[in-house]
């Protein structure tokens, strides 16, 4: 994967080189605390090249933090993160060089509002990769076509719909030609009718063989597109496996409870006879458990 990119970081540890081909991401013993609050309590997992992994779980379970630890937007408190054998958590690694190999898409798009759509796509290509203006524009335009917003290249982000903004954000990340894409709840901030376009783009990306790690609440997307689903709760991975098992036939009570809420939120709040907030807080009450069983049966 990395033989044509001879960065200093790549040549880091010879021992890790052997892992390079087997895992796109390897996370080992990952802990993350914000002050007193421990958000990740020891996470181990890998993503293989070309694999699409969906991370699901209730809010506050640490799934976004995990994703942000993979490109070190959050500094892990303990543990290691390795990208194709390059250990990112090694203090001697130039993290800026590694990050350009990892695309990231945010819940709130985070397009640069002072730049046109095309400039959003070219600025990092030019400033980080040192591409010429023409080359950056050519690559940028190709990626805009890929996500279906070519006609908006000279518009500003504020003039686009949320769905278009998110697709531009995906094109921006793709323009850096990353080995791996991270998606942090990419459709959670969108109006329901705009979700489909973004998911379609992601689905195509997955079909093209992109390695993807997706934090999402879109269960149908996870079921249809993911090679593997990871269910997190309370800062640990509770369950992982193919979607047919984790979503179709979950083994753990906590997974069943969560899925029953996500797949049929109306029923969940009716049975609990409480507000949604309460329902969320009491994730492990008996009432919720019965529901989970009911759904399964």
């Amino acid at each position, binding site marked *: 994967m990395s033989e044509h990119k001879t960065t200093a970081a790549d040549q880091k540890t010879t021992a890790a080189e052997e892992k390079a081909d087997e895992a796109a991401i390897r996370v080992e013993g990952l802990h993350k605390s914000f002050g007193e609050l421990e958000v990740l309590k020891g996470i181990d997992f890998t993503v293989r090249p070309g694999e699409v992994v969906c991370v699901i779980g209730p809010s506050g379970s640490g799934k976004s933090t995990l994703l942000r630890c993979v490109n070190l937007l959050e500094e892990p408190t303990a543990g290691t993160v390795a990208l194709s054998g390059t250990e990112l958590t090694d203090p001697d690694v130039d993290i*800026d060089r590694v990050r350009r190999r990892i695309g*990231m898409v945010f819940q709130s798009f985070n*397009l640069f509002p002072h730049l046109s759509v095309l400039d959003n796509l070219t600025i990092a290509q030019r400033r980080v990769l040192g591409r010429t203006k023409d080359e950056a524009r050519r690559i940028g335009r190709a990626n805009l076509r890929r996500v279906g917003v070519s006609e908006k290249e000279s518009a500003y982000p504020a003039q686009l719909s949320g769905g278009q903004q998110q697709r531009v954000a995906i094109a921006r990340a793709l323009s850096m030609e990353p080995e791996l894409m991270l998606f942090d709840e990419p459709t959670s901030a969108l109006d329901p009718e705009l979700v489909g376009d973004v998911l379609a783009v992601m689905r195509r990306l997955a079909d093209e063989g992109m390695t993807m790690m997706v934090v999402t609440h879109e269960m149908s997307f996870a079921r249809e597109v993911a090679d593997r689903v990871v269910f997190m709760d309370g800062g640990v991975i509770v369950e992982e496996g193919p979607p047919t098992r984790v979503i179709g036939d979950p083994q753990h009570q906590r997974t069943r409870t969560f899925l029953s809420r996500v797949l049929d939120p109306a029923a969940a709040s009716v049975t609990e006879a409480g507000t949604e907030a309460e329902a969320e807080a009491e994730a492990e009450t008996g009432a919720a458990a019965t529901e989970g069983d009911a759904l399964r049966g």
Partner: protein
Amino acid sequence: MSMSRRQRTRAVRGVQYGVLALVVAAVAFGANWGEIRRAFFDLDVAQAQFPDIITTALVNTVVYTLLGFGFGLALGLILALMRLSSVPPYRWLATAYIEFFRGVPALLVFIALGFGVPIAFQVVINQYVTVMLALGLVGAAYMAETIRAGIQAVPKGQVEAARSLGMSQGRAMRSIVIPQAFRIVLPPLTNELILLTKDSSLVYLLGLSLGQYELAKFGRDALNENRSLTPILVAGLCYLIITLPLGHLVRRLEARTAKAR
């Protein structure tokens, strides 16, 4: 006696207009209009101010202001970045600077630079440099706080997006954060430009040659010459030529910012 709400409103408004009419009448009949016209609106004196008040005084005021603003903006940006630095001594230095120059009168800074420095160090400083430094040093303290607030107002997600594309901290600051911060602080910075325009009148302290006169000094000299307040009024109107459009610009920029949110 009870009044309906409409009657009460009408009565209150009637009283307000009544008071206004009384004051206007008192001024109209009580003031010595002949004296006032001689003092403020002497057309001959007013005409004598032109064209020099525009070609020399107004131009110099603009030049002094822009010199001070340019230097102050650059220094203010450096101070703002120091205030946000992760190296504590930079933060302390910037805070000390800002507190000092916001706390002392601009007049003192002009005296210190115009007379203090040349005497103490036995150097001759170019007049324009002195003006630039004095106005800029004071302006920078205010602008630094404005720019810092602007930088902090740029959403955190912008830096995260920039970093996730592989930009270094400095590159993200230069290409992403600072351009957005300046958009946010454009209205308050324009206000600062208005304040500096007026502070440029302190230049008179430095002892100017005729060609260096700015509006306030120009008006004051003409006042002594003509024993009429007219030149002061004309000079004041000339300041408005600069400040009113700027004020209008601030309101438009603020409206644009409000719409963009």
